């Protein structure tokens, strides 16, 4: 299998690399344009979405990532990564941009401050057992387009996981709780897509 690229500009990219390593799935760190060559999928980690947005611009990755997503590269965003994959944002900063790809509206810091962060078991469509997930100053999906399917919701119905074709976006962090199932799920998406 060709390696899965993990965007290593800022955030918890190391936890994503370690999770794939635990599954025996090869990865490559993406920090420059040329690192995007020959990858089977791309992970956009948790972190600060405003910072990852700026750095992807500064280091010349933004246009290439947008192009690869439009060509069908399997892409997986967690938390800040979900924000960066949304077509529209609520409560973004004035200058904040996204890569887009998911026809959804995402609200940043939707639960409030760090005091409102929490951990929770979440049912995930396509994964048999509930996923133990950390929601850290997490976003939620407030609107979805017709081609978007919901893969995870909180008990109160709020949408915290969506998939549209080869793009997967979730509000939470399975990578910090020792969960491997969602990464396995994404690796299977990459194998199937054979990009």
């Amino acid at each position, binding site marked *: 299998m060709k390696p899965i690229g993990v965007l*290593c*500009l*800022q*955030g*918890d*990219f*190391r*936890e994503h690399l370690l999770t794939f390593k635990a599954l025996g799935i090869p990865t490559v760190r993406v*920090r420059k344009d040329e690192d995007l060559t020959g990858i089977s999928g791309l992970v956009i980690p*948790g*972190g*600060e979405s*405003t*910072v990852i947005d*700026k*750095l992807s611009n*500064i*280091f010349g990755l933004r246009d290439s990532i947008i192009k690869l997503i439009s060509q069908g590269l399997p892409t997986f965003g967690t*938390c*800040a990564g979900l924000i960066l994959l949304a077509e529209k944002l609520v*409560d*973004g*900063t004035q*200058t904040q941009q996204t890569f887009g790809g998911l026809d959804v509206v995402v609200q*940043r*810091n939707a639960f*409030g*401050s*760090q*005091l*409102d*962060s*929490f*951990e*929770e078991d979440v049912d995930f469509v396509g994964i048999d057992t509930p996923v133990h997930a*950390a929601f*850290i*100053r997490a976003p939620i999906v407030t609107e979805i387009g017709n081609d978007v399917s919901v893969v995870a919701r909180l008990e109160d119905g709020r949408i915290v996981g969506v998939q549209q074709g080869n793009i997967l976006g979730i509000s939470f*962090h399975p990578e*910090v*709780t020792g969960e491997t199932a969602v990464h396995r799920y994404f690796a299977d998406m990459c194998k199937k897509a054979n990009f």
Partner: protein
Amino acid sequence: MTEKSNDKQSTPLVKRGLAEMLKGGVIMDVVTADQAKIAEDAGAVAVMALERVPADIRAQGGVARMSDPDLIDQIISAVSIPVMAKARIGHFVEAQILQSLKVDYIDESEVLSPADYVHHIDKWKFDVPFVCGATNLGEALRRVTEGAAMLRSKGEAGTGDVSEAMKHIRTILGEVRALSSKSEDELYVAAKELQAPLELVREVARTGKLPLVLFTAGGIATPADAALMMQMGADGVFVGSGIFKSGNPAARAAAIVKATTSFDDPDVLANVSRGLGEAMVGINVADLPAPHRLADRGW
């Protein structure tokens, strides 16, 4: 203090989780909402709200305390990134107030005047996570025992002299490496010498790493300083006086952010180091009489 609404919030995982998300980033000291906006626009991963930057605390002297809640409120409203604020060492009521203001992290900081020269805050009693400073592994593990969720090496704040930050991160990570090479029966004495709980000492020896995210602080003034700390093994950097006491804060802040990401690429570092105007006027730590060294506060 606010009551926890359930057992899913403010868990160690949740408290430490935010620190994990800040990794690879720069946390900037700001004293006004305008500075907070400049920091956010430059790519800060969080801001530290305080009344005076360490260089001014040092210059003006007197007792340095928690910031005015109005100032903290203004900074929280001005930015979308996490906001941290400082409480005095041992001043658990300042910490209660900061929690009530809903800051995202509290820094129990030696930059402010200590309120208790014996005890630090019992951080397990709080829902909001804490970051604490340390100059060596024993100090770091004592803060972990008290409930800290993130660590920073202390350095010497307000000097622009990176040598103490270097000394502290070398000491902390060097002691981690030394522990990981010890045999099981040597850990009892190691714990005694570090003055840290045996259980934590065993964990560090077994995993070969600290149990918490470690940022570095105190004297970082240039992109090269930030990259130096990252190459030494820091998870991220705090920049205090170095940005808003320099000639061109916005440009310097953005350059330090880039250097922290591309810390191992000298070509990028050369580029981002150009044309930043004057760095903050520094003080050599060697010229500071011992009673004026902030890193000696806390134990």
